């Protein structure tokens, strides 16, 4: 295609976008609504994912060793655990270290536990991490079978619930986003269909003087893209501002070592690009869908 032709298509597309007035605003409104919802969902989903991954990484198995175990038994045990498939790391922690951790984690109140330093009721433990956090349950079960294991802790219920919730949230989010995108495409294609009807005469003349279908299609393609991109401006602004405030407030929470969310940069940039991309695709797809019918020779 010649550059002058491309320029013409863009000029034509822009002019049509402008000329269609209220229809343009209606289409942009549809895209805007969709993209705000899609954007909020994406932000929620990606952060949930992030939090889940973080928590998953924190999941570890504490294998409490019987107090009666000799040093050689402990060595044998370590070797056995190491032989299990899918182990990322194994650390040994003495009961003294365990008590210290416990006291530290409880702050002021923990001082009371100091009394136990002379007669420590805790066990030595192996702290085991799985390569894939989803394997935790299986590995824990295997460790539990070994001799000299008193008990295995990994917060079963907590971990299982987290995994289930994660998967559930992901699926629901994806289905909702797909439904929203579909609705927006339908709305745009209907809007452009109306504008095409208004330009039926023009298309007829174009065909009469020998315009190719691609040539006729281009301005509509450009118009759809404009509608999509214009429709993504407000959603991006809303999400950038909203997320900025969220990260500012989370920063305060994070001081208390709660869950973290994704940093503003580069996440905000990525999400903006995704939103523009989805907007433009919705617009282009919608417009091409409606033009198709009018181009049958």
């Amino acid at each position, binding site marked *: *295609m010649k550059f002058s032709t491309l320029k013409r298509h863009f000029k034509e597309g822009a002019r049509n976008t402008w000329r269609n007035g209220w229809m343009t605003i209606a289409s942009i409104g549809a895209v805007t609504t969709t993209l705000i919802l899609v954007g909020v969902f994406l932000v929620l989903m990606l952060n949930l994912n992030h939090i889940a991954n973080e928590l998953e990484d924190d999941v570890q198995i504490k294998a409490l060793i019987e107090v009666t175990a000799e040093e050689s038994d402990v060595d044998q045990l370590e070797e056995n655990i190491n032989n299990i498939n899918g182990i990322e790391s194994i650390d040994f922690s003495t009961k003294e270290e365990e008590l210290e951790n416990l006291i530290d984690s409880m702050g002021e109140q923990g001082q009371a536990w100091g009394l136990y330093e002379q007669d420590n009721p805790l066990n030595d433990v192996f702290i085991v991490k799985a390569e894939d956090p989803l394997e935790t349950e299986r590995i824990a079960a295997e460790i539990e079978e070994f001799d000299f294991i008193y008990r295995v802790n990994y917060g079963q219920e907590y971990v299982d619930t987290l995994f289930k919730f994660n998967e559930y949230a992901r699926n629901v989010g994806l289905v909702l986003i797909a439904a929203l995108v579909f609705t927006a495409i339908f709305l745009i294609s209907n809007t452009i269909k109306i504008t095409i009807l208004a330009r039926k005469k023009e298309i007829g*003349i174009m065909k009469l003087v020998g315009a190719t279908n691609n040539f006729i299609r281009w301005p509509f393609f450009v118009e759809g893209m404009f509608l999509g991109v214009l429709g993504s401006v407000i959603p991006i602004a809303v999400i950038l501002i909203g997320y900025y405030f969220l990260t500012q407030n989370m920063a305060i929470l994070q001081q208390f070592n709660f869950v973290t969310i994704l940093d503003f940069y580069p996440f905000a940039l990525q999400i903006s690009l995704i939103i523009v991309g989805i907007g433009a695709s919705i617009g282009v797809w919608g417009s091409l869908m409606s033009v198709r019918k009018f181009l049958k*020779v």
Partner: protein
Amino acid sequence: MIKMQEVYMTYPNGVVALNGVDVTIEQGEFVYIVGHSGAGKSTFTKMLFREEVPTKGSVVVNNTDITTLKWKEVPYFRRNIGVVYQDFRLLPKLTVYENIAFALEVIEESPKNIRKRVMSVLDQVGLKNKARFIPDELSGGEQQRVAIARAMVNHPSLLIADEPTGNLDPETSWEIMRILEEINASGTTILMATHSKEIVNTVKKRVIAMEDGMIVRDEHRGEYGYEV
């Protein structure tokens, strides 16, 4: 130039538009197609630029058989044919100049050439001084001249005019006829469907008369032959 053989055309609703048409038209001819409404004139002319495809038979225009033409080739085929309608079919929001330039833009002519050719064809139809007007500011005759200019700007070898004077008063009609004759004199084949007895009987040309989808009369320097 144009060769129709055993052409039949039945619309999906069962209406028989053409019922065995055989005709040959040579390059440079000026032909009137006459006949009552519904006699098949429109279908006949539409086939020449492949707006319609026959249900049976062959239609060859400019050595191209439209029945075997791939739809992707149709636009290129049409660039060699100009079409003018009774209702002008100009774009109301564009100026005269833009309306004609439009026909060249869509076939991706260079801006420099577009300017040159539009001005030249405007000169040919005598509307150079009205280039910046929009169609509504022109008389019917002038609008039809713009439509002719748009059809001619590609230098087509065939010009199809479907009742070009149908909406015009007699005086303006003669003006359009004079322009069409000039175009014909430069070698372009002209096919004109018309209901104007006066024109057919005054500007003598070949006359093809149609009835019930068939050619019932084909004579050189013919008469209109129907009572109006």
